[in-house]
Every structure is written in C-alpha cells, then in structure tokens.
C-alpha cells in the first residue's frame, strides 16, 4: 500500500501582511515628450514586508509601466548590476528591503551619480570599467609557469581578503564627490581592485600598478570622505584600502 497523507494539514500559512508603497523614480526618456529633461514619476504598488526595492521596481515594470528601464541580473546581490541611489544613498536594489527605507514616505530611486544616464536608471558604465581595466586587474608574474598551484599561506591570503569581495557595482565610485566633479579620477573601485593584486603575494605587478595610480587622478585625489565605505554593499573597507595603497606608494618613494 502506498503511503498517503491521512489528514491534509489544516493550519494554513498566515498571509504575509501587505502594504502600499510609493516609489518616486527619476526617469529619463529622451524619445518621450519630456525630451532631454529627466523627471520624477510616482508609482504606488502593493508590497509585502519581505519585498525589496527591486521587487517593487519589477512590479512597476510588469504591472504599471513597461517602459521603466533598469539593470538587474542575478537579483541576489552578487552580480552588481542594480546599484541605484535609494533615498540619496547608493545601494543595490536587490539587497535593500522596502521596510528598511521607510515605506511610509515616497521612496526616491535615482540612477547612480557621476556617470552618463542612458535611460531611466541605466547609466553608461564605460568610464567606470575603463579605469578598472587601466589598473591591470589580472595576475602578473615573471619566470616559468609553475606545474602546480601558486601556493600562499592563509596569512598572505588574509592580507587582501577584504578587497576580493568587490562585485564592480560602481556604488562606491558613484558615491564619491571627487568623482562627481572629476570624471577622470580613477575612483574607489579601481583602487580597491588594484589593492587586491598589489597585496597578493603571488602577484609581481605591484610596482606597475602603484605607478599607474601614482597619478594626479589616482589615489591622491581621495579626500577620505568615507562615502565609498558607506556605500559598498559588500562591506569592503574601501577608504582603508585606498589609504593602504597610499602608504605603499610613500614607502616606495622614500
């Protein structure tokens, strides 16, 4: 005899309480009647206590206005596609719960600052990635290739552990007031990724990377405002990493 459930469970799962939430989204639609002017648009959607800002954006796009444009890929805080400015702070829309950004008032959602807006919440990330490429984000070694792994002690790994967490979402760089006025500044993200290799015992390109960042637009433009450390959705101590690169440059020069 096959086993069957004798009694269907009588206790039903209690319904998750829902609430109305208003999002004020900064929109830029050059082909619309608004032309080149960005404008605010309000959407009110029904959300649950477990919903994130990304869920609310999805709801708007799927149920209210399909023209709303934003980037997202994994939707779980790993790919770094959906960094937006929520209530004036750079966050990942997929890692920010609605209940944590005061849903009683309209929630402001804007594209990240300092990069050219293409449409709605989508910005041109090319200047950001150009700086990233410039610091040579790959292993640089000399000599013959070893026939097995390049070994490293756990202490040596610990040295740059913090900066390996970067997901290149640009939340830090686009929160930096120096980057806002000077788009030529390398920006925190590029320096963080340089730090990841400069302090890696297996890498031999530290000298070159320090030389690249010892630029008028390099680490010396950092004003230690800590906006980047506060913005980082991965909790990287960005400002500390920048200071460590500065220190490495000073000990190299003297």
């Amino acid at each position: 005899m096959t086993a069957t459930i004798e009694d269907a469970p009588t206790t039903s799962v209690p319904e998750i309480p829902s609430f109305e939430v208003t999002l004020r989204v900064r929109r830029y639609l050059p082909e619309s009647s608004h032309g080149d002017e960005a404008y605010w648009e309000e959407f009110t959607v029904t959300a649950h206590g477990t919903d994130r800002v990304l869920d609310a954006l999805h709801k708007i796009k799927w149920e209210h206005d399909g023209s709303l444009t934003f980037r997202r890929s994994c939707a779980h805080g790993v790919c770094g596609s959906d960094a937006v400015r929520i209530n004036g702070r750079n966050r990942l829309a997929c890692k920010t719960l609605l209940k944590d950004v005061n849903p009683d008032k309209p929630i402001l959602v804007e594209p990240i600052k300092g990069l050219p807006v293409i449409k709605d919440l989508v910005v041109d990330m090319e200047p950001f990635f150009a700086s990233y490429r410039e610091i040579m984000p790959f292993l640089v070694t000399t000599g013959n290739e070893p026939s097995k792994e390049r070994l490293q002690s756990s202490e040596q790994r610990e040295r740059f552990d913090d900066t390996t967490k970067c997901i290149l979402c640009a939340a830090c760089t686009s929160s930096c007031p120096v980057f806002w006025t000077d788009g030529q500044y390398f920006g925190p993200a590029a320096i963080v990724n340089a730090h990841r290799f400069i302090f890696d015992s297996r890498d031999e390109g530290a000298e070159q990377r320090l030389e690249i960042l010892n630029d008028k637009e390099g680490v010396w433009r950092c004003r230690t405002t800590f906006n980047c450390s506060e913005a980082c959705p991965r909790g990287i101590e960005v400002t500390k990493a920048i200071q460590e690169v500065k220190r490495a440059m000073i000990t190299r020069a003297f």
Partner: protein
Amino acid sequence: MTTSPAIANPRDTYKRQKSTRSNFELYGWVFMRASGVILLVLIFGHLFVNLMVGEGVNAIDFAFVGGKWTSPFWQTWDLVMLWLAMIHGTNGVRTIINDYAERDLTRLWLKIALYTAFVVVTVLGTLVIFTFSPCPVDAPAELLPSVCTA
C-alpha cells in the same frame, strides 16, 4: 533609397585625457602632513611668546616687533612660519579648486589668482623680515626698541 542614421560605435572606448603620473601629488600629500605638524609648533610658539610671556598682549608695539626682528632666531622663526604657512595654505586651496572647479578655464583663472596672491604675500613678507629697520631716524626714542639707544 534611405540614408541610415549614424549610430555611435557601441565599443567606442572611453579614454583618459592624458596620463599625469608623477610624484608631485605624493610629495604634496606628505608635505601637507609634515608642514602641518611643524606649523602647530611654530604658530603656538609664536602665540605664546607674543601674547602670554611677560606683559602679554599689552607688550606688543613697534618696539616689541622691532626688537624681536633684530634677533636672527626670531627672523628665522618668522621666515619659516611664513613660508610653510603660505605653501601649506596655497596647496590646500589648490586642492579645493581642483575638487570644485569643473570647467578648465575657471580652474585656470582661480589658480592664477591664487598663485599671484601667494607670490605677493611671500615676497613682501620675506622682504619685510630681512630689510626691516628697527631704528628709523627722527623717531621718538621712547617708541623704539632698546637696541637702538645702546
């Protein structure tokens, strides 16, 4: 036949205007920290000697300043203080201009004004410290420092 609209190259890479690699900003950064510490000593030493020692602030007059500048020690002190303060301050304002002035021309003019002010103040100040005459002729003796009558 219709002409197709020009579409921007999607792989048109963003380029840095020019590489500005040099140790200039590095030395500037270190100088700001070092001069800051030295200036703390110089300025508070200056304030202490001028305002607190002896009769305090009431002692400051032409004779007091004139007397001070007859000593090479105070001449050097004031000279170092003047130069460090001027370079430190000018470098600080230069940084602020770089941070806030977005247009190249605005930045250029603000810097021209800044460097002009720096040169005028520093040259004038240095000149005064070294060419100051503590005993001008035809001046009432009671206003002059004691070195003049000696």
